[in-house]
């Protein structure tokens, strides 16, 4: 008697919470397909009278969506390549090599996770200004090529779990360090690399602070900044259009997430557990 009751109760709770977590997204989709007149009704309408994509057309006229999409994509993809590469190199050194300052350096690197971006953003802005990179995508992409605490930590944890025997065998066969890293360690670490790549891509795709600081011209704008400007400039109450824009910006990342969700979940679990 008690068991089925508890299962039913659990399902009820699960569905209730799912409503809370997914409901706002459904509301977004529904609003995005409504007429302007239909969104200002009390009580609110749950569904548009008929499927109506004209808000999407309107927003494509208002914003250079194609260019924004391309900018977001260029930044996210290049930054991902840079992060994965530089973090993998550092993580391999920390996982497998002996050198002076090993412990101190690793500690300093991990401690940088605590630094709020607000502290570093002014000097970094000055560096970018000196390089003439203000209002260019370089300002957002290039720093990603110089390592990162989170990625190095994640990959180091993973590299440490790879058995040494494989590398020893390769070394006896006369393989150099870099070839071992490139041909043995990296291919074996694909799960961790994919996880880091997904996280990095997502972080850069969704980033708002960086674009807000560095990108001012319309041609350089990302999707996030385009949405933010749309809201603050013209149409603070045009929720029909704002929701259509939100749908378009969220869609690619949701698809990416659903395609790669086991990597996400595994990656988070990996960082949460200490060795």
């Amino acid at each position, binding site marked *: 008697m008690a068991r089925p009751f508890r*299962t039913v109760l659990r399902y009820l709770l699960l569905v209730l919470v*799912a409503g*809370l*977590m*997914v409901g*706002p*997204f459904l*509301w*977004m989709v529904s609003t995005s397909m409504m007429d302007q007149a239909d969104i*200002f*009704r009390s009580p609110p309408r749950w569904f548009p009278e008929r499927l109506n994509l004209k808000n999407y057309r309107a927003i494509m006229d208002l914003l250079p969506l194609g260019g924004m999409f391309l900018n977001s994509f260029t930044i996210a993809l290049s930054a991902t390549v840079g992060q994965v590469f*530089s*973090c993998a*190199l*550092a993580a391999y*050194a920390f996982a497998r*090599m002996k050198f002076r300052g090993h412990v101190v*350096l690793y500690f300093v690197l991990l401690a*940088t996770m*605590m*630094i*709020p*971006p*607000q*502290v*570093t*953003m*002014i*000097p*970094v*802005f*000055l*560096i970018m200004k000196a390089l003439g990179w203000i209002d260019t995508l370089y300002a957002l992409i290039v*720093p990603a090529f*110089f*390592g*990162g605490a989170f990625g*190095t930590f994640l990959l180091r944890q993973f590299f440490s779990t790879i058995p040494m025997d494989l590398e020893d065998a390769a070394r006896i066969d006369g393989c150099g360090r870099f070839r071992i890293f490139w041909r043995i360690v990296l291919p074996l670490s694909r799960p961790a690399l994919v996880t880091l790549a997904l996280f990095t891509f997502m972080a850069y795709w*969704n980033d*708002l*602070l960086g674009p807000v*600081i560095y990108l001012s011209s319309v041609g350089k704008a990302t999707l*996030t900044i385009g949405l*933010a400007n749309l*809201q603050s400039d013209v149409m603070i109450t045009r929720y029909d259009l*704002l*929701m259509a824009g*939100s749908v378009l*910006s*969220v869609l690619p*990342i*949701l698809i*990416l*997430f*659903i395609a790669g969700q086991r990597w*996400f979940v595994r990656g*988070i*679990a990996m*960082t*949460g557990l200490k060795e």
Partner: protein
Amino acid sequence: MTRAGIFRAFEPYLYLFPTLIGLLLFSAGAVAASFLVSFTQWDIISPPEWKWFDNYVDLWRSDLFWEVVRNTLAFVALAVPLSVSAALALALLVNTGVRGITVFRTAYFLPVVSSMIAVALIWSWIFNPQYGLLNYLLRVLFGVQGPAWLDDTRWALPAMVIVTVWKGLGYSMVIFLAGLQSIPQDLYHAATIDGAGAWKRFRHVTLPLLSPTTFFVLVITMINAFQVFEQTYVLTKGGPANSTITLSYYVYQNAFQFFQMGKAAAVAYVLFAFLFIVTLVQFRVQKRWVFYG
């Protein structure tokens, strides 16, 4: 030393080269540079003037600055306990093998991967006083007239907390779930044999064994809460009547809207100091409650 030996000694630093440059320019080095900037008056265009502690003294005397500090602390005090406890509750809820559970886990994770700007736009529509979903539901389900949320000085900050908690729940839930699943099942069997009920098992098995995870989630959530920026930028721009300006937004305003780099750097250092102290305290206090089996 042979040539190969020299190479071997230097090899690790080649792997670390990008990271070292990054540390020097973009993190540790930038932290030091920022510290120097905080002692200057500087609009970026004309050369900086060294002003010793003027920026800090001005902040201390500014009413707005104290309001910003209060807003930030209130935000942290509301958001952190809510986030952590709700995420733990969710993790307990999804820590089961029932049919379809992965669908639910995925659903709870959707807000995490979405951008804060999209999420904030959705919620600003939900918070709309007249036509928004939230006040409609409050009226229909509870017969309560909801506040003006983002337009009300008392409710704008709590509204920001709601959005923040909602967006971050899935992330912490997954960490908690991994923690829960690493607790050996034998302990629960043993506790049951000893006559412990569900609550006692939770209190005396789950909570202590989960405490390292809880500590990790707590530290991460706290750090993120202190840095709240995008929510303010999209939902309120700091208003109404400055009631939602947080330290991090204040840094942004001073640096990139008012071009007062020195003052902005000083505020950033105050934020850093808060974070440092709070994290240090957490690491000190953890010895009393975190149980490393």
